[in-house]
């Protein structure tokens, strides 16, 4: 009995020591909390590529190996130290872990979050704890529409851009489209993606007919009934925001039944699956990458360096989640160094970094990013769509069209849904 008690006591003591050790760190390096899915269904397509991107970007920044204008080591010469956290476990766990990052591990800045639910839950806490927090991937426009934030930034465009861009591309590709249909997962991402796409299509094609909107359960895996309905709908265009396992299942099940021959299928996040399923996706499928990332990234020095370095280390090209993570880190670096320059070369305070971050324009591997909306806290970027085309057995995109940031994003202070309903008025 006595021994059991001692054992339990020592385990408890050991458990308490672990976080205590983490606190006793040198103050000189800049601690960056990085939060992304390391487990669960979103880890494979988004979370792990984003973690890899964070690892390699921070390592290269610390080594001073990133091309200009990011060639200064770390942030303004101060080394970066990464604290990695898994985004799984639900909002309660995420809020707990965010507080741990700030109050136990004393991070200077938090970069992360893929799920819109996490972002909505974390933003008020970031504000309460006065911690600079940069969202890199989550899509919902609600974050800066429902509230103003001082400490929260997002360096990628909202999901509205993906839907509006897809609708504009349909206009270019099939100007005579009459009937559309949708296949989206029944949760916030799928509902919002389809909602914005349907609204945009009705603005662009006032006479468009919506044949059907299929909303199967998330991770259902079997879509034969939905595919039958879509085949019967005889739609000119089918919109889908499916991702990863669901997307792959849909492609594998729809291909043999000829759905891709009957309708033009728009896959707004298709980029994460296009290389893996290269021999299953026929030519002519519209592929999106949630912005100018991956195959749509510009042909500049930074991108050449980025895609080559990433490919070299992980043996796969970086997908859009990886691009967005690197973009968030480089954006924070740009703001930090701008603030440091304004502060006479001394390490800036977080308030100074925030002042420099608001309405900042910087360049990521995906091109120019402008913190133009959400009172200077929400980024807008251009976007691009194209169709699949196999060249010598390799998957590429053809017929690529680029849409400038102002065309596919609402102006500052206008809610995304209102902007679409008012005919995309600038």
């Amino acid at each position: 009995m006595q021994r059991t008690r001692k054992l339990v006591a020592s385990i408890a003591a050991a458990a308490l020591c672990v976080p205590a050790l983490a606190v006793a760190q040198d103050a000189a390096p800049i601690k960056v909390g990085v939060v992304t899915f390391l487990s669960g269904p979103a880890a494979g397509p988004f979370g792990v590529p984003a973690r890899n991107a964070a690892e390699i970007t921070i390592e290269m920044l610390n080594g001073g190996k990133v091309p200009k204008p990011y060639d200064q080591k770390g942030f303004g010469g101060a080394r970066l130290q990464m604290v990695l956290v898994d985004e799984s476990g639900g909002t309660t766990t995420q809020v707990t872990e965010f507080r741990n990052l700030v109050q136990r591990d004393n991070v200077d800045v938090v970069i992360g979050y893929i799920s819109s639910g996490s972002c909505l839950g974390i933003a008020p806490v970031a504000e309460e704890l006065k911690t600079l927090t940069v969202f890199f991937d989550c899509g919902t426009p609600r974050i800066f529409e429902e509230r103003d934030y001082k400490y929260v930034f997002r360096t990628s465009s909202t999901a509205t851009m993906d839907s509006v861009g897809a609708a504009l591309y349909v206009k270019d590709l099939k100007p005579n489209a009459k009937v559309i249909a949708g296949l989206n997962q029944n949760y916030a991402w799928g509902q919002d993606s389809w909602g914005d796409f349907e609204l945009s299509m009705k603005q662009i094609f006032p006479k468009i007919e919506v044949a059907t909107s299929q909303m199967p359960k998330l991770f259902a895996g079997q879509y034969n009934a939905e595919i039958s309905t879509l085949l019967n709908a005889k739609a000119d265009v089918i919109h889908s925001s499916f991702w990863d396992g669901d997307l792959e299942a849909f492609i594998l099940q729809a291909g043999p039944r000829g759905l891709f021959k009957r309708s033009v299928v728009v896959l707004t996040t298709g980029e994460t699956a296009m290389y893996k399923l290269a021999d299953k996706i026929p030519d002519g499928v519209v592929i999106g990458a949630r912005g100018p990332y991956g195959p749509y990234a510009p042909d500049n020095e930074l991108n050449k360096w980025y895609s080559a370095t990433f490919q070299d280390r992980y043996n796969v090209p970086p997908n859009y989640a990886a691009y967005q993570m690197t973009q968030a880190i480089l954006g924070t670096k740009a703001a930090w160094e701008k603030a440091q320059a304004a502060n006479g070369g001394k390490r800036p305070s977080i308030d100074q970094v925030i002042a420099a971050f608001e309405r900042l324009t910087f360049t990521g591997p995906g091109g120019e990013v402008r913190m133009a909306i959400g009172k200077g806290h929400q980024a807008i970027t251009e976007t691009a769509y194209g169709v699949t085309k196999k060249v010598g057995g390799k998957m590429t995109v053809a017929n690529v069209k680029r849409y400038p940031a102002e065309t596919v994003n609402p102006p500052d202070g206008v809610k995304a849904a209102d902007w679409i309903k008012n005919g995309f008025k600038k």
Partner: protein
Amino acid sequence: MRPDRTPWVLGAILAVLLVVGPFAPLWVVFPVTIAIAKGLVALGLMILLRCGLVSFGQALYYCIGAYTAGMLGRVFELDGVFTLMLAGMAVAAATAYVLGFLLARYRGIFFGLLSLAFSMIFYGLLVKSETLGSTDGFNVLPSTLFGIRPADEWVRYAVLAAASSVAFVAALLVHRYLRTPLGSLAPAIKDNEIRVEYMGASARYAIHVKYVIAAALAGLGGGLAATTVGHIDPEMAYWTVSGEFVFITILAGTGNVIAPFLGALIFEGIRNVAFAVSPNTWQMVLGGALLAVIVFLPNGLWSLFRRGRAA
């Protein structure tokens, strides 16, 4: 008969929380508050478990409590900690009273799966309600205490103090209830229901009452969790959350009303440490630690405190 020490121990724990709270690091205060919320749900499950019933759908009432708190903020701009918790409790209890007429007829796996089904129906409804943010959920207003919004550095302590006071009252009442004739029927129902009926007691009525009490406690915990976390989403009704509550209850053991809170605290503690030491494989650390408890302490953590006296 031994003197009943539980009320004194409960009072001592409350005093320690209230006195130590202001000096504890903030990253400790928050998970302790969450553990109290989950402990309240586990306390309700413990009552059911004592009569041999395992509800795999307690997250239904946890989520109802949370959404009641959230909706009161959204529609009526109410943000008092006590108001939100009590409202969550009332709505959860009322729902359980209605569902109880059906559920109190079932035992064993049928009771477990039926309760699971109700929680998944609620989850499905919330996912389809786009005005409530679907799976993304929505923010709950920052908490106030008797109409006063505490300063940022004190708000966590204020919520902890409110939570521990409410949990103290709840634990004390449940402790008293378990000693009433109706409350002490539980082991008898578990062992032999026919004998209970022959004695002149109605097993179905006793279970119905226990089910409503358990739901009320879960609603209380849900309301507390909503105002503590500041954000709610349908995931709170998902079956994995119910599973977590069952796990905490089994981890803790059914020996005493303090056990569920201890179980929740240890569960949160292990998870916090696991997240920090192995971000890529925290589930394995958590699973391993919990497996160890099951293997070495089959009657739950509470058996550590009882072995010396009872056995």
